């Protein structure tokens, strides 16, 4: 559609100004600074600053803990996405079945989305507290020793569970909406075409959900990438032994805790490139393949 208001010259700029201003000041300026900073070495107090070329990048890329964080991020994102999505799909399918209760169940399941990741972390930390946690206690009685302060796998599991708990409702809302928008006539056509309920789900409903599923995969990964910072920080602070340090957490840790501005900026730049690339990839390629 061609724009209806064509003769106005100044009005659009007045309209654009606030958003453009904020984006330029709080997005582009920092982003450019990050890029600049990545080429400098600076001491903690910002008293001295020296151009260092690619030193920061080399250091980051030769740091085994950086790769550990990348691996953790991958496992973490996948586990959260797959976990939150499969639980949500299962629940949504059941809620969709029981037509009448669907809205009630949505109400009962949707609220964890409103809980801040940091709060979710605290809630789950409490459940697994070594002295008073309910679940750690139960596990202890079953002979499973729970010690997320020492056991990296358990720590990661805990953070993943808290993140799934919070994220599930988001996926549930989408899956339920998607399920409810699968045209009834398609399922009827399939029934007439001799497909039983199970086959109908896998050959009709599920493929029709796949755009939603793909979208959710992206959103869940983004969530796991960025928004779980609060969960990680409250539950494990990235430990034990870096087992729950994700790339984003590492940017924070190296920059704010380690006071290594250059390394942190270099990681920021790498992360921006990574996320930008993934987004581009998503827009360009994958989305086309799963859209109907």
């Amino acid at each position: 559609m061609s724009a209806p208001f064509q003769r106005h010259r100044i009005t659009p700029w007045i309209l654009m100004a606030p958003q453009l201003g904020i984006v330029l000041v709080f997005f582009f300026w920092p982003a450019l600074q990050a890029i600049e900073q990545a080429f400098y070495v600076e001491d903690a107090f910002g008293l001295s600053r020296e151009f260092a070329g690619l030193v920061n990048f080399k250091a980051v890329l030769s740091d085994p803990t950086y790769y550990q964080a990348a691996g953790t991020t991958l496992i973490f994102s996948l586990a959260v996405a797959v976990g939150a999505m499969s639980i949500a799909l299962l629940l949504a399918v059941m809620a969709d079945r029981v037509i009448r209760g669907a809205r009630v169940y949505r109400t009962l399941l949707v609220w964890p989305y409103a809980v801040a990741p940091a709060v979710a972390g605290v809630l789950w930390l409490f459940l697994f507290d070594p002295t008073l946690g309910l679940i750690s206690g139960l596990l202890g009685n079953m002979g499973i020793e729970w010690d997320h302060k020492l056991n990296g796998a358990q720590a990661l599991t805990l953070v993943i569970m808290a993140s799934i708990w919070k994220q599930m409702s988001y996926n549930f809302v989408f899956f339920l909406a998607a399920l409810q928008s699968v045209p009834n006539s398609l399922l009827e056509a399939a029934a007439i075409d001799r497909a039983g309920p199970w086959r109908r789900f896998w050959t009709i409903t599920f493929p029709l959900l796949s755009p939603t599923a793909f979208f959710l995969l992206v959103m869940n990964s983004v969530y796991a990438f960025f928004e779980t910072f609060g969960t990680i920080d409250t539950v494990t602070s990235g430990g034990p032994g870096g087992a729950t340090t994700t790339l984003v957490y590492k940017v924070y840790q190296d920059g704010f805790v380690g006071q290594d501005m250059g390394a942190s900026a270099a990681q920021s730049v790498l992360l921006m490139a990574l996320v930008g690339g993934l987004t581009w990839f998503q827009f360009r390629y994958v989305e086309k393949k799963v859209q109907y």
Partner: protein
Amino acid sequence: NTQITWWHAMGGALGDKVDQIAADFNASQDTYTVKPVFKGNYSETMTSAIAAYRADKGPDIVQIYEVGTATMMAAKGAIVPAYQLMASADVDFDPEGYLPAVTGYYTDPEGNMLSLPFNSSTPVTYYNRERLAQAGVEEIPRTWQELGDALEKIVDSGAASCGLTTTWPSWVMLENYSAINDVPFASQANGFEGADARLRFNRTAVVDQIERLTRWQDDGRFDYGGRFDDAAPKFYSGDCALMMASSASYANIKENADFDFGVAPLPYDADVVEQANNSIIGGASLWVLDGLDEARRQGVAEFFEYLSSPEIQADWHQYSGYLPITQAAADLTRKQGFYADHPGTDVAIKQITTGEPTENSKGLRLGNMVQIRDVINGELEEIFSGDVGVQEGLDEAVSRGNALLEKFESARQ
């Protein structure tokens, strides 16, 4: 009225005490108001102070733990050295009045005191008398070897599900272990003699010590309880019969443990030394960040003078378990009969003043030590959880730590 902000890391009962000290100072005069702000644990306090400094929003006074000392010392333009501050403010300040073990740590090679020691500690052993009695342990073990036997008894008798735990694992099990047993933690007298110091603990008795702990972790004699003070509840709850922790844990243990407990020195390793060396300092000192005006400088100086007065120091020492920083405070405490009334409260001061400090027991002066601690803690966690072997883990800790040291060194040049 001039406001002075003081960022500190004293939580729990100690935090309340800090608030009270500030309130008392504010009440004692009406020119200055000191506003204490709790900024989380030591590491959080330090990092937020640095970040705030960079943003020109730094506090006037910040409490930095001993580990951050080298970093702060190196930040020449960012701090106001205590001796200069006191001198320019024209208040009474006599570095000689401080305990040598303490001042030594916070003075530059020229002997100038750069920060004001406020809460210095050293680790000690706390024991649960009831559990020990239950297990039939009568003598408080003095060596790690004796300790091993005692812990075995405790665990085997079922008196406690865990024998020993520790707070601040690197500080207690590596840094102080090295000092007491006179092995180098790092080269160059642990950094006192040059910025080119490198970590050494992967090639000393520390390896055996960590191997011992790993074994104990498996058979229940030892239980890792997390970084910082996270392990303390295991002792409060009676799960662990012994805990190695800062002398300053005294106040909290007194408040939270509903059993009879005792304080003992850290054991030494009979396989390594005949006799224990002195332990090294922990806790924190107060640093003044640059950028304050004349009035506030004056205020800070007067507050420091107030803090160093024997009455305040003695009270703080007795309440918290931190060392009496000045000779006067120690004397006053003794005079008040505190040690006699509260047996064990002098263990720390005795332990840290045992004998003549060797080059392995003067303390640590390593740049980026905050981050190095993180590295060590991370590796310890992996070792205790069985993810890596002891030697392997310590090697890794040393090489990553050395990288940080190199970085620090090169940034200084």
